[in-house]
């Protein structure tokens, strides 16, 4: 058996687009095979067909040298194929063990007759499994009490429990912190050593370089290259992915910073259990300056942004915008005073997913003329404005301004949020994780946009978990650790390693 998985001449069409066009990939047993490509290149569609969620319009799938037809995920599981989706599919109020065995529960007989779920046996099985593969979890803990990386381990165990030999990971590192990513890559390598075949969907080239054996590159539904990773540079991979040469390296112009626009003084924020999550933080951002807050996830940076935007109440301290104290203002007054906010979670906070694109683009402007007058909306003006923004920010969707935002890709959703917020023409822009889960092309565009706003003299507060992003964009870096701003320095005076050390709470590095 030369190949574990072969997908031959796969074609899949959706109304209006060809998601996969005559794609042939062959994956050897016990290798880590990466699928590279931008958002919408067809990676997930290809893997969804292998996992039985769609059927190809054309082409054949061969597993272990046998032609198969996979019509459902159950059938895929029967062929020892498992998949960890980008958005986890777990029951929140079940424990880890319950989630993992769900559907194939071990059964015991109560009073020798009544069949019922054998929880203890399930937990023991999970415990054994997690030791075997080094995936530490507490089987009795509820999913809702777990952090993201623990949930991901549960998903992985779910595959292994079903004796999966072919493991598909869809963008597994998009939601993880740098430490967690390192840990996950370790696990994936471990799985390979245990004899599993791993397919990794990703667009993070560094990670692929680190662990993958071979990679296939998809571009607009077509297979453009299959390479051995060790002979290919990341730059080359990126060029293959985008389809032409890499965009010009970004140039950050030297510009004169102007006056102070945002000043935060001794800000303290408590969470709902009255524990301080932001402690006595002070800093200021000037026009033409990108102030980046670096920190490991969960160190108070989200709460910091929410408190400045007015979504969370500050316990103590002052927030000054253009010299005026806005700490007692409600959200609307802060927006009007000059604050734009790109929130961390575009899907639940930044957008109303079941509204049309046009309605989302006026989400903060619907009350202003010409979009409404005396409380009556003006659909013509709203439509015209939406089309203008769609053009200017290159927001792509199936049905233009009438598209439900839910049906748009993550990258285009983010473009809509950023376009809307920039177009408020406010002097202060707060970006929280602006490129989370996006591909290189989209990230590049967003970074350019942020720099453009900087050149236009805006004050920018950038909160990011990606050190690369911070190093690339920031003028000033503030490191947040455990709710405290432990260090504020000129970005040029710090190396990535130093920032990393401060992020981990090392003092005096």
């Amino acid at each position, binding site marked *: 058996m030369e190949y574990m998985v072969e997908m031959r001449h796969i074609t899949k069409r*959706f*109304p209006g687009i060809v998601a996969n066009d005559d794609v042939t990939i062959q994956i050897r047993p016990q290798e880590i095979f990466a699928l590279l490509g931008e958002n919408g290149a067809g990676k997930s569609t290809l893997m969804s067909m292998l996992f039985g969620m*769609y*059927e190809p*319009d054309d082409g*054949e799938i061969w597993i272990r040298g*046998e*032609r*198969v*037809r996979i*019509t459902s995920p159950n059938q895929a599981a029967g062929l020892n194929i498992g998949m960890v989706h980008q958005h986890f599919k777990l029951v929140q109020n079940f424990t880890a063990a319950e989630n993992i065995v769900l559907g194939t529960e071990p059964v015991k007989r109560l009073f020798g007759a009544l069949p019922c779920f054998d929880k203890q046996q399930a937990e023991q099985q999970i415990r054994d499994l997690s030791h075997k593969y080094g995936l530490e979890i507490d089987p009795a803990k509820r999913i809702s009490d777990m952090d993201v990386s623990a949930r991901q381990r549960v998903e992985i165990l779910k595959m292994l429990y079903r004796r999966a030999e072919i493991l598909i990971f869809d963008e597994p590192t998009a939601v993880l912190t740098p430490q967690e990513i390192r840990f996950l890559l370790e696990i994936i390598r471990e799985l390979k050593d245990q004899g599993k075949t791993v397919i990794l969907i990703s667009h993070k080239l560094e990670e692929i370089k680190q662990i993958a054996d071979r990679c296939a590159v998809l571009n607009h539904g077509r297979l453009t290259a299959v390479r051995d990773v060790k002979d290919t540079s990341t730059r080359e991979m990126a060029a293959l992915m985008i389809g032409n040469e890499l965009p010009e390296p970004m140039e950050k112009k030297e510009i004169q910073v102007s006056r102070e626009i945002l000043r935060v003084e001794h800000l303290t924020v408590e969470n709902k259990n009255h524990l301080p999550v932001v402690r006595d933080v002070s800093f200021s951002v000037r026009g033409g300056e990108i102030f980046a807050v670096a920190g490991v996830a969960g160190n108070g940076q989200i709460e910091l942004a929410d408190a400045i*935007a007015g*979504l969370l109440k500050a316990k103590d301290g002052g927030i000054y915008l253009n010299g005026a104290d806005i700490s007692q203002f*409600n*959200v*609307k*007054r*802060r*927006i009007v005073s000059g604050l734009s*906010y790109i*929130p961390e979670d575009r899907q*639940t*906070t*930044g*957008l*109303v*997913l*079941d*509204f049309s694109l046009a*309605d989302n683009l006026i*989400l*903060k402007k*619907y*009350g202003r003329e010409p979009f*409404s007058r005396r*409380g*009556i*909306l003006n*659909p013509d003006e709203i439509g015209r404005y939406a089309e203008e923004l769609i053009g200017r920010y290159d927001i792509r969707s199936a049905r233009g301004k009438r598209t439900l935002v839910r049906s748009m890709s993550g990258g285009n959703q983010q473009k809509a949020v950023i376009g809307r917020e920039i177009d408020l023409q406010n002097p202060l822009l707060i970006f929280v994780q602006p490129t989370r889960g996006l591909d290189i092309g989209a990230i590049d565009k967003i970074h350019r946009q942020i720099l453009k706003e900087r050149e236009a003299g805006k004050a920018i507060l950038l909160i990011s978990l990606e050190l690369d992003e911070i190093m690339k964009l920031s003028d000033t870096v503030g490191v947040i650790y455990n709710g405290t701003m432990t260090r504020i320095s000129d970005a040029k005076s710090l190396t990535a390693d130093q920032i990393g050390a401060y992020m981990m709470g090392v003092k005096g590095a």
Partner: protein
Amino acid sequence: MKKGKHLIQRGLILLLGNEKTQPITLPLFAVFLSLLLGMVIIAVTGANPVNAYQNLLQGCGILPKPSYAAYKNSFTDFTGFLNAWTPMLFASLAVAVALKAGMFNIGVSGQMLISGFMASILAGYADGLSGLTAKFLVLLVGIAVGMLSGGLVGWLKYRFRVNEVVSTIMLNYILLYAVSFCIHMWYINPVSRQSAPVTQASRLTLLDVSAGGMKIDIPLGILLAIGIAFLLRFLLNRTTFGFEIRAAGKSPEAARYAGMQVGKNMVLAMMLSGALSGLAGVTYYLGYFGSIRPKVLPAVGFDAIAVALLGNSNPAGVILSSFLISILEKGNTYMSSRSGVPGEIASVITGILLLVSACTGYIRYRINRLKECGPNTEEKGRKGRRGEQSV
């Protein structure tokens, strides 16, 4: 057999596949399917389903009956039907508005009862009022009391995070027994065991109006109800207030982020929903009936939940769905007397209708999936299987 299935699939895709028209075609399909199922059930009881449906329409004055009692014809039947439809329409709009704001108003019944009761004692029993003044007062009291009782629910949710489903169910019982107590103590008619009938001047339905040799009941509320439905449509779709309510309903977090006052909108939406319940209450107790039966919550308030869902919480859709359900409810007496089909069958059909319309999400999913995979999956599948065997 396979070929037939294939053809049906294609037909369904053709009829229901267009995603733009799906909000209209799918509910119509649901109605059609349930009426079909209803026919099967009627046939099982031994009656002729076509006749039974005809009787339903005849009972509502939409089709002519073979014979009429004195002073009656199909028009008087129709106004009688309108009389029953009015409170149903108001109540369904009340549920729909709350749903748009992301809340589930199960308390329409209780809100109807308290509004009807307050309107009865404040305006319905007052002597010497002119017809116009009395009717105006009834409407005003109905709206005000409904608004207060709905607003209370919204406020409880806003201030104390009390889930509106819990608070409305509880309030239903509190109001039911409080009102029943008052009626038994002070307003009981010892013969009918109901509350004393309200004055003719305050009735929102003009009774036995003689015209063209007929005696007609004219429900004044129906014009108001249809007018308000369109007003509501405008309010929800074309005003900033409606925009805020819909945003809060779809995603409270995003609404808050956009600077909307979600709590305030919640209370306002519940007040609006309550006001509509109030109108349902007065058109029910001071229009359709002239008195209140103690210790009974009006079923209209609960049917309205289903009607609003069937109408997709959209005022125009609610007009159609409430029209349909009212035909079933109003026409069943005539149906059972004519074709011997038990009147409960109408409720069974209503139930089926709700069940099927609750499944429209699933139907939509299947249709869209069928469309995505192409109608020729079946054929492909066979080819694929042959291929497997040859390997």
